[in-house]
């Protein structure tokens, strides 16, 4: 019953869209019918060649289509840029959160750089790194860096002093307090930052691919525009949406498990 209700509005919209496109009121170049998009999507996703056991494993064949290769290229860039960005932001954020002197030293610079959207770095990124993966990775790193940094700082600074007191009272030295109390207590904030950072990284990868590289989901929909393949554009957009949803769900599952002790989380 609930599933039926959840599907009702999308189904009606799709039906209306299909009817509109078939009526001839709009050009299929501007708005192709959903059925046409679906066919194009299948063609985009399907392995290019028939299954031939002599030429490699089943999984490699399954992912040999254009869409899986594009999706993997985009996800690999997100993973790489996010790993670098979060990998830099996490230790820096912990340090800035725990040491007010370091915070005072670096905070002004960060406050000036933080509001600049990563997209605005595109010209500089191309100037510095040329075209290809390096500028894309740089932009994604930048996109992931600040959300993780800001949330980590906030997480460390907002650790309830009562936990610090309890730990010191039980004989913990400062390093142990940091490692065994501040770190886990800040974890909910840190993970929130990572989830936001991953979301930004995913936005940035699409933009970066439109500009700097010639693979990936972002590149593909811009390429499709050159040929007026509006059905492929929409299929690509839907793929981007699903990939983003998958990343967020995965992250949310991981958070739920890591924070299973946390009050706000069910289960």
């Amino acid at each position, binding site marked *: 019953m609930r599933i039926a209700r959840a599907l009702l509005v999308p189904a009606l919209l799709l039906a209306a869209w299909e009817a509109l496109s078939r009526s001839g009121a709009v050009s299929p170049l501007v708005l192709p019918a959903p059925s046409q998009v679906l066919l194009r999507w299948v063609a985009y996703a399907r392995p290019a060649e028939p299954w031939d056991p002599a030429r490699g494993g089943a999984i490699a064949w399954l992912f040999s289509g254009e869409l899986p290769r594009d999706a993997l290229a985009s996800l690999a860039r997100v993973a790489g840029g996010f790993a670098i960005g979060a990998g830099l932001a996490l230790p820096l954020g912990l340090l800035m959160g725990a040491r007010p002197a370091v915070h005072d030293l670096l905070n002004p610079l960060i406050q000036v750089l933080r509001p600049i959207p990563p997209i605005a770095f595109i010209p500089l990124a191309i100037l510095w790194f040329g075209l290809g993966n390096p500028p894309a990775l740089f932009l994604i790193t930048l996109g992931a860096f600040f959300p993780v940094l800001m949330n980590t700082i906030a997480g460390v600074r907002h650790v309830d002093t*009562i936990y610090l*007191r309890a730990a010191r009272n039980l*004989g913990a030295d400062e390093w142990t307090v940091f490692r065994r109390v501040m770190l886990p207590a800040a974890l909910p904030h840190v993970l929130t930052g990572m989830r936001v950072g991953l979301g930004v990284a995913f936005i940035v990868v699409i933009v970066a691919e439109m500009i700097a590289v010639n693979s990936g989901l972002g590149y593909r929909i811009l390429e499709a525009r050159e040929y007026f393949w509006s059905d492929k554009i929409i299929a690509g957009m839907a793929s981007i949406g699903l990939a983003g949803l998958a990343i967020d769900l995965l992250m949310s599952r991981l958070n739920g498990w890591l924070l299973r002790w946390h009050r706000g989380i069910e289960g």
Partner: protein
Amino acid sequence: MGEAEPAILMRGVRKVFAAGGREVVALGGIDLSVAPGELVCLLGPSGCGKSTLLNAVAGFSPPTSGTILAGGRPVTAPGPDRAMVFQEYALFPWLTVERNVAFGLEMRGEPRQAVREKVAAWLEKLHLRDFRDRFPKDLSGGMRQRVAIARVLAIDPPMLLMDEPFGALDALTRRNLQDELLRIWAELGKTVLFVTHGIEESIYLADRVVVMTYRPGTVKRIVPVTLPRPRDPASPAFNELKKVVNALVMEEQARHAVAEMGAAAG
């Protein structure tokens, strides 16, 4: 009491806070001595500085002047010889019950096997065995405070500092934990310094009730409680004592109320 060295000795303990450009004298020169194995309650209205005094003994917040000796040594920092039980439990929410109780033992670098055995024994003693794999968020307030008590008892401290530990619990759970505390105290002979604003609680538990004045906090009167344990709060002797202590506390409560209204008017 004269012959043994006191477990806690406070001499001229003063604490001054700066609040909004004004100086607030929270503690106005406290002299107090607690004998080893004694259970002493600090009693007074909120703002009398009883928690401030406890925090000073714990080493969280040193006094502005005066000295505190614990076990004969001056207090300079927090330490496991003065184990604290907080009103808010202060359990580490990311650790299970078992791992919370193990924390202090791990800090001492005890071998894993010894930690496991001690933790198991304390969980058993405080009826927590079936909850050892739970996280604090899945426990009731009373259970959480049991875990907090097990956590400090596991490191076998000579004294316990308790900051309104049962203040957030319902009446039945509170009585239950008071009895548990008395049982453990009688068995282990720990020195206990117990902060409360509950008049009945202080008489039910303490060897001596230290009634404190409202700001600056000083010792108003020390009321010895000689009633045999277990004490019956419905008995005439208990109620006589309650009247005496109540009168002392109400005088300070009245000063507190006047001061608050004055602050609101000013």
